[in-house]
């Protein structure tokens, strides 16, 4: 009976689609007027250039006539592009275009390969961000499970207190600021790590050296994310585990003679996995956004740094595209967590309420 999981995932997927559409609509509504202005100014300039340079200017007898002709040409262009219709009508077309990844051209920023297409700019950036976060999240997940479980096994011990305290401190520190401090310490004061970027300039050609160079550049940003997030995640796991370790089935396991290590790292952790994944779903967006800012600090040329560049140059189409893809990434990450949740918890997989009364 796979319908339990199917139904559950379908629900989450519908939710995700609504989220994506809502975000896109919101950006369109917010930026619509700005983009309009820019477009109109651009048209005006183009038309003017055309008339002035195309030699057509001489045909007009009076400046007024020339002005009127220019105005007419501009209006025609605007009409041809459909810009004369009110925004709430055009927005649906824009929505469709955005959803189908037709994100237009940037105003200032260009991709590394020189393209002005927003999609191309983003396609270059996404893998870098995914690399940074994928690595961080995987390390985070594994370490927090181990640390959280170990802390829960000896509540009140020094180790446990450290986990609790670092969990609390994790709430208080801004990831990107910790990044600044680490960068200052280990790239400027004691220069053992690069001051930023993803690879050295020029990048090494040999694949292994390239990978090592990449890892060397990734070290500090990943460390930053770990320092801030690890305590909090481990703390969540610890609390869940402490609750679970007092349950009857754990006593059963111990009474059965299951070694303590297996009790904690198998019986208890297995039970903690579904709620941990739920927490991950809630936390992923927050590390992701914290990490976007970390990219800025480390000049990691991903989607976060793109926000920074686009904000500085007020490149609205790029910001819109970045927001859209950020949303998609977060939604996908959440869906993955949901899917894993369904897999690790047979009660979801087999449909709740399977018990006979």
């Amino acid at each position, binding site marked *: 009976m796979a319908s339990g999981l199917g139904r559950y995932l379908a629900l989450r997927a519908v939710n995700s689609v609504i989220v994506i559409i809502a975000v896109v609509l919101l950006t369109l509504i*917010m930026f619509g007027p700005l983009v309009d202005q820019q477009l109109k100014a651009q048209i005006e300039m183009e038309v003017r250039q055309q008339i002035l340079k195309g030699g057509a200017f001489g045909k007009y007898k009076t400046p007024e006539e020339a002005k009127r002709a220019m105005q007419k040409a501009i209006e025609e262009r605007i009409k041809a592009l459909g810009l004369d219709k009110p925004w709430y009508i055009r927005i649906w077309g824009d929505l469709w275009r955005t959803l189908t990844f037709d994100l237009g051209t940037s105003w200032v920023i260009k991709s590394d390969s020189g393209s002005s297409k927003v999609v191309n700019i983003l396609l270059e950036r996404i893998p870098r961000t995914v690399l940074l976060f994928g690595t961080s999240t995987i390390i985070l997940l594994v370490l927090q499970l181990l640390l959280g479980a170990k802390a829960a096994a000896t509540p009140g011990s020094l180790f446990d207190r450290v986990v609790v305290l670092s969990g609390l401190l994790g709430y208080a520190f801004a990831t990107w600021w910790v990044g600044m401090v680490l960068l200052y310490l280990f790239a400027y004061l004691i220069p053992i790590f690069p001051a930023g970027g993803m690879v050295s300039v020029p990048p090494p050609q040999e694949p292994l050296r390239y990978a090592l160079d990449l890892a060397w550049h990734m070290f500090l940003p990943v460390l930053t994310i770990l320092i801030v997030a690890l305590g909090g995640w481990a703390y969540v796991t610890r609390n869940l585990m402490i609750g679970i370790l007092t349950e009857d089935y754990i006593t059963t396991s111990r009474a059965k003679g299951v070694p303590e290590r297996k009790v904690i790292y198998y019986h208890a952790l297995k039970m903690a996995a579904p709620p941990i994944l739920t927490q991950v779903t809630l936390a992923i967006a927050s590390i992701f956004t914290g990490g976007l800012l970390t990219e800025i600090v480390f000049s990691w040329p991903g989607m976060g740094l793109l926000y920074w560049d686009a904000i500085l140059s007020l490149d609205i189409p790029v910001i819109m595209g970045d927001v859209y893809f950020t949303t998609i990434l977060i939604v996908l990450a959440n869906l993955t967590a949901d899917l894993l949740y369904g897999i690790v918890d047979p009660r979801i997989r087999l449909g709740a309420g399977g018990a006979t009364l």
Partner: protein
Amino acid sequence: MKFAARIRDFWNEFKHRKIGILGLGILVVIVSISVLAPVIAPMDPTRWSDVNYWTNNPKGVPPTWAYYLQGKVPIPQLYLENYKTKLTKISGYPMIQVFLPINYSYTEFPTMVKWKINLTFVGAGAFYEIYIMRPDRKKITLYTGTATTSNASQGWTVIEIDATRHPDVERRIGEWLSSVGLDINKIQVAAPIQIAFADLKLLKKNKVVPLKGKYVFTVRAIAQGKNINVTQFRVILGATAYGLLGTDKSGRDLFKGLVWGTPIALLIGVLTSVLGVAIGLLYGVTSGYIGGWSDEAMMRVVDILMSLPKLPILIVLAIAYRPTIWLIILFLTIFGWMGIARVSRSIALQLKESAFVEAARAIGASRKRIILVHIIPNIVPYTVAALALGIPDAILTEAALSFLGLGDPSLPTWGAILNQAQTGGALGSGMWWWFIPPGLAIAVVSMAFVFIGYAVDEIVNPRLRRR
């Protein structure tokens, strides 16, 4: 009386928790700082971004104590105003000479040299020259200029120049250096003006060390007319260290920024969290108590809002609206109530089915009474911890937004200072006093609330207690 007793009980529990007491202690300190800000750090906080406001401060210098820690004595900020005037005539035109002496006995160069001269004259125009007489009797012309007037009878000009990196000054110094056989491009100094204070003999050996002795800043001006006068001549020599936390590259006093950032952070954190908790509580209780179809719909809204990527949307809103602090609080609130709403709803659902609510229904209590008397008072304790934890969340989010340069531009928020540090290359130039304190301040204030929240949560939510 009952309420007081409950508060006392709560306090008795709370005071056993060291971490909570620590948080409370920090809170007391930061609240005091906020209240006393106008006394500790007098300034108009809305002029933080106004560069003119800070123009007379040394730029980018470290805190004074850091200097002493290194065993060095910093140069103080010097304001020279006691000038002597000498009026003469040259070729029939009136000439004025103004002397501003300084006995320079420091081992380091001033970080900044600025002057301000008020020149009045009667006639068509005036020519002026600013030079410095060094202890070694060398004269360096720093700046020359002419003033004209459309009103032939009366003219005036204000010559206010930051000579530290002024291109004209740099050119003049370069000319002087080449006259003694040196190349300005081969000398390493923080600012060209500092060469005017350098020991020439050592300079030739590639050592940049100040020459001690009496320097005289001089203005000489000649008017093409009858009369000339200097009504003000002031020279500021920049300190090498400043105050408790130094200055940034625009000369802003970072201590003042840090102090004034405190009430702003508290305002943002507390207001956002309180509003968020209030909205979330009402929404959650309504949703949970009404139940059925509308509950489903209301919770779906919460689900969707919760899955929205917070920071990107805040970026969009901030770009579209150029927000004030109030607007930022509003935006943060919009994203800050769903967690509470969920918790409140699930507790409300439990309470709704609980026997004591059923008992209240059985005695004929109205729906309003049940919600107000039986449900909300039983949810409030759970929200206290959330309230405390919502504060650092709001502070951190606002800081992130300001770090991106999208905060309220007029106020000295910690995030804004960090943004300025990032754009100003504080890391690369080693200006740790620019970016370490504001980040620590964010962390310390957040910690206070996290610790208090943790302690409160342990008391009202005993499942987390160590067993």
